[in-house]
């Protein structure tokens, strides 16, 4: 580094002073990247947003028009029929996504409730209480977080088949909670660590028991983090695909939205526009939650990254 900057120092920087030599390297780079930056930003926006725009676009265009003019970027004809078809029950000729939404919501909300019930005391203990094996427990949770789901797929598939819980939402819920609880504790612990211990000590001096301190001081203070965590867990459970596929593929009535969409996606009889409406339906809750709480979520997610 030292040699480089030394070499560059003598170059005359003001470009106007030496017009014959053209731009200095510094001025050239500044101009180049000032332009390039906007090109990159525009390009990134296109690649991230376009697939979503395309999904919405197809869901509101009639199928015949899509087949006639596949490259159009604007709907010539606007209709919400696809949404009606995808939501209606199969008896009336629809795809029954209303039922799938109910299933997804049940599993996702159940996962949030049970994960928090288990993770909150756990996170508090890991953050505040010195107990035997605390470090090992933290390491174990990190390992679980990194652990590949596909490796767990085999034994859990066999196990739940044998105890007869494979075709049930309860089985799926148990699996989700067990896999999310570790990362949930990891996130919540980071937040508990930022709450001053002195607050809790003050409450303890005033006669609060350990549980009282937790209930009256720590949890109310951590409420923003708990909310963010709840939404994060909801998103994971709502988006999950592998275990839903393994557990529920044979029981149509219990399909989640993701599973329903993936199972229908291969079929030729169902118009793509209808499935695109289903795709919007599965994405919409996530996008709404995400934009409403983006700051909470990203701060929770990167809390560990700023340490280094």
């Amino acid at each position, binding site marked *: 580094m030292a040699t480089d900057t030394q070499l560059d120092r003598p170059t005359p920087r003001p470009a106007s002073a030496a017009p014959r030599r053209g731009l200095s390297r510094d001025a050239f780079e500044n101009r180049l990247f000032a332009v390039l930056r906007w090109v990159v930003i525009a390009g990134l926006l296109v690649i991230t947003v376009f697939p979503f725009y395309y999904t919405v676009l197809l869901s509101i265009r009639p199928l015949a028009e899509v087949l006639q003019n596949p*490259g159009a970027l604007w709907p010539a004809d606007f209709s919400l029929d696809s949404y009606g078809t995808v939501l209606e029950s199969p008896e009336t000729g629809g795809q029954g996504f209303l039922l799938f939404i109910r299933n997804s919501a049940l599993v996702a909300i159940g996962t949030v409730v049970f994960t928090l019930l288990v993770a909150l005391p756990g996170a508090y203990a890991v953050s505040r209480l010195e107990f035997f094996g605390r470090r090992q427990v933290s390491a174990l949770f990190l390992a679980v977080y990194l652990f*590949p789901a596909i490796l767990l797929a085999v034994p859990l598939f066999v196990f739940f088949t044998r105890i007869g819980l494979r075709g049930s939402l309860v089985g799926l819920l148990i699996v989700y909670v*067990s896999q999310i609880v570790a990362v949930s504790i990891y996130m919540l612990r980071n937040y508990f660590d930022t709450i001053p211990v002195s607050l809790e000590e003050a409450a303890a001096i005033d006669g609060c028991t350990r549980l009282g301190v937790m209930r009256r001081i720590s949890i109310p203070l951590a409420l923003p983090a708990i909310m963010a965590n709840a939404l994060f867990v909801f998103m994971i459970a709502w988006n999950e695909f592998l275990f839903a596929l393994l557990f529920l593929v044979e029981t149509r009535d219990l399909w989640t939205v993701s599973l329903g969409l993936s199972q229908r996606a291969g079929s030729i009889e169902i118009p793509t526009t209808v499935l695109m409406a289903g795709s919007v339906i599965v994405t919409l809750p996530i996008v709404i939650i995400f934009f409403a709480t983006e700051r909470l979520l990203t701060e929770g997610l990167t809390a560990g990254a700023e340490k280094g």
Partner: protein
Amino acid sequence: MSERADVGGVPPPAAEPVRGAPVTGGGKRGFKRRADARAGLALISPTLVIVLVMVVLPILWTVSLAFQQVRLLNIRNAGFFGDYTLANFQAIFTSEAFWSSLRTTLIYSVLGTAGAIGLGLIAALALRKPFRGRTLVRASMLLPYVTPIVAATFAWTTMLNPQFGIVNEWGQQYLGWDEPIAFLSQKSSEVSVFGVQFTVPVALLTVIVFEWWRSFPFAFLFLTARLAAAPATLEEAARVDGATLTQRFRYVILPQLMPTIAVLAVLRFIWTFNSFDDIYLLTGGGAGTDVVAVQVFYSLTARGDIGVAAAQALVLAAILAVFVGLYLRWFAPREELV
């Protein structure tokens, strides 16, 4: 309850023993420590039980199943102990399909990881300086990562569809393609650049590009956070010394980002190496994209061979463990994870 009454303002009874603690010394503190230890174990035990029963035990069971010949049909016999045999591993290691899928997995995860981190770095740098609407743009960058995988892959398969996908339509209209490209079902294609013939693995390349698109926000998020924590004074000093933009990046910013990039590389590699959803939903594992995770799935469900599925998953995990171990040993700077 009684706690409520205490908080209500009556002289706190607990104040006395706490104030007296230094006098009585270790005995009281030891008591508190033991109470803390008991409470800690009690509070953590539900989590611990769930994780042990639903994660740790199943992993051990996978190891045991990998050494038994169990099929879905005779699942009643699937236990922890049985007739241990190496037959599953023998079947795997002698099959050409497994080695080729291992090669695919490796290419997919190395290129996928590198591209996702590279793209994330570019995005983080481009969005570093504030401008109007940056918050919204940043949030949009994260969309591919948070969206349900099924919806994301469905949008891609439709866009790339040879009959009515917009990519092929535009390619033929504006880029002069002679015929639509089957991005997700064509194994390889001859391409000639400046008269040199190349064989391009079309489908594999497409799923790798999808992986970049899907995962770059993760790298972007962490690198943005790290960039925000980088002190401005260092760059200012380098600027005063005459370092140009690229030099400041190369010698001031990049060294600060390296620990984060190293951690990202490990995390992304682990996840990409085992990734199942993306490829299963995009190509179903066909056209030269049969990564090991997809093979595990088909062994388990389509062929119902639990033993082979367990053995494949185990080999996958073992290889991954070796890679990550070597990486941490040789390259990784000390970055605190826990």
